[in-house]
């Protein structure tokens, strides 16, 4: 097992390097000089040259990349142009809020997704199965930013049950686990949960259908095992794949939360990215994307290792 983990780590290193290269190049993809947001419009040629030298933009690109990577590896993502604060601390605070939201959404999505998936897989072509496939098609087809708006219209504007935006009553921007703050997370988490719900329901339905069709289930029933006993076997067989998909969905939600966070003004990474894009705060943009992508790479690695550990049928090749 340890050898397998090491092997995965070796495999992940070039991917992580590639991700860092893409994030580095993002700044250079931007039209105009990366410094245009900092410098005044009437800056003299001398000032521009001085600033370029100070930020290291006068060096050739590969050298710039090496210097940047060295700093990143030491936890230095530069300073935000808008606030002047270190990017790492800005992103750190936002990531916690996003992680809370994405985890709750994944949990809701996983619970209902597996429920629908199991029912549909057990009762193929029944009305419940149709209903479950409708849920899964809805989950992958609905524009989630629109669903968020609709939920706000129904539960905030019309019924007045839940607050429409923000993470808490004080507007401090930090979510805490108490009742007041819980009311703020319900709508965004529910909106977000629809995507993993659909995908997990679809996967679990197919898995359960496959497992029930296998010979060993027949054998279990033939030897007189109760239906609940058979069900336990089905769960054990479906669990590794379902859990793996849940892990990946958490990563997708964390990286893809920008639209939902914008609708609900949730103080997470999506909100931060939005601000970074429209203030042309390139270090902040670069830093948040790097952190989110690296988190996704790490999550992929963990899911891979966990799945292999849980499912002895997967060869550790």
């Amino acid at each position, binding site marked *: 097992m340890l050898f397998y983990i090491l092997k995965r780590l070796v495999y992940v290193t070039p991917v992580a390097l590639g991700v860092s290269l893409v994030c580095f190049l993002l700044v250079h993809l931007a039209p105009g000089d990366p410094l245009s947001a900092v410098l005044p419009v009437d800056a003299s040629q001398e000032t521009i040259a001085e600033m370029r030298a100070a930020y290291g933009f006068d060096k050739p690109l590969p050298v710039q990349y090496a210097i940047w990577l060295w700093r990143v590896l030491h936890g230095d993502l530069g300073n935000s142009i808008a606030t002047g604060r270190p990017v790492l601390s800005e992103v750190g605070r936002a990531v916690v809020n996003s992680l809370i939201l994405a985890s709750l959404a994944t949990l809701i999505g996983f619970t209902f997704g597996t429920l629908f998936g199991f029912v549909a897989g057990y009762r193929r072509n029944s009305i419940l199965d149709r209903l479950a496939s409708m849920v899964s098609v809805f989950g992958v*087809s609905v524009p989630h930013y*629109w*669903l968020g708006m609709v939920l706000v*219209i129904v539960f905030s*504007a*019309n019924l007045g049950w839940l607050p429409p935006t923000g993470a808490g009553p004080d507007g401090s921007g930090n979510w805490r686990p108490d009742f007041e703050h819980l009311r703020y997370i319900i709508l965004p988490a529910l909106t977000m949960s629809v995507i993993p719900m659909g995908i997990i329901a679809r996967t679990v339905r197919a898995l359960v259908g496959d497992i029930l069709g296998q010979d060993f289930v027949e054998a279990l029933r033939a030897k007189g095992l109760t239906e609940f006993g058979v069900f336990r076997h089905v769960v054990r067989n479906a669990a590794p794949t379902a859990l793996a998909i849940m892990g990946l969905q958490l990563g997708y939600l964390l990286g*893809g939360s920008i639209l939902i966070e*914008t609708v609900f003004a949730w103080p997470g990474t999506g909100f931060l990215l939005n601000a970074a894009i429209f203030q042309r705060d390139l270090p902040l943009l670069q830093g948040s*994307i790097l952190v989110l992508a690296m988190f996704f790479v790490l999550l992929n690695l963990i899911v891979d290792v966990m799945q292999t550990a849980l499912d002895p049928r997967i060869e550790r090749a």
Partner: protein
Amino acid sequence: MAAPITAAAVTALAEGTPLPSVSPEAYVPSRGYWRHVGHKLSRDPVALAAAAVILLVVGVALFSPWITPMDPYKGSMLRRLRPIGDSTYWLGSDELGRDMLSRLMVGGRLSLFMGVTPVLIAFVVGSSLGILAGYAGGWINTILMRTIDVFFAFPSVLLAIALSGALGAGIFNAIVSLTCVFVPQIARVAESVTTQIRARDYVDAAKLSGASAFTIVRVQVLGNVLGPIFVYATSLISVSMILASGLSFLGLGVRPPEPEWGLMLNTLRTAIYVNPMVAALPGFAIFIVSISFNLFSDGLRSAMEIRQ
């Protein structure tokens, strides 16, 4: 119609035996693959309904400049946010007093264009790269597929927003970003199918009979690979529509006053307390088109008997 010449008939002719008589009625030509798929699709009511919705929306969007009831750009400060069912504005009016029905009709043009174009370009580029990697194998495969792995390390929404955020707002930049998101996904599917096909006996047979690599790719590989990639690409259109409108929703795509569903949804967000039904309309349009593409893609997949 004359009786078709069968292999048995040729053998019989060569051996000098008299030809067996074949009545024209007894000969039933086997259905071609695509006719078979079309036949199965025509018996799938869900896929047919989805196709009808797509055709209707595309038709309305295409002909919208000639059929809109009102000028989609002309507003009226006195008639803002009229409700659905208004006598002049059938689907209400927006926050600047412009007719919603006309704007939705014209808005479909940009929404559909920005949703479909990236998938079309990615279909061509992605399948070329994937087939090249899968057929060539070796170091070409390693370089291409490891590069693609890097793009898979980004969740697609994040990659789309990162690229268009760096490139800046605009229709062209949004399309470029979305294409970059879909090329790796299509290339990976194309590579895995091509690798499977390359190991088949009929490819070896074609090689032995002296076919060039180009001919094998054109006949044996493309014929078997394009189907699965095409089905995958149709399912991506739904994602692409949501993402493209999402970019405009964030302010990274279409710019005002141009009508586009995602942008309309964003500007109407302020109206959810005044006129919620009108504010939700553009999102409903995105949803209907997106779910239709998904349902049609599902129907196509089962009609083409592609396992996923």
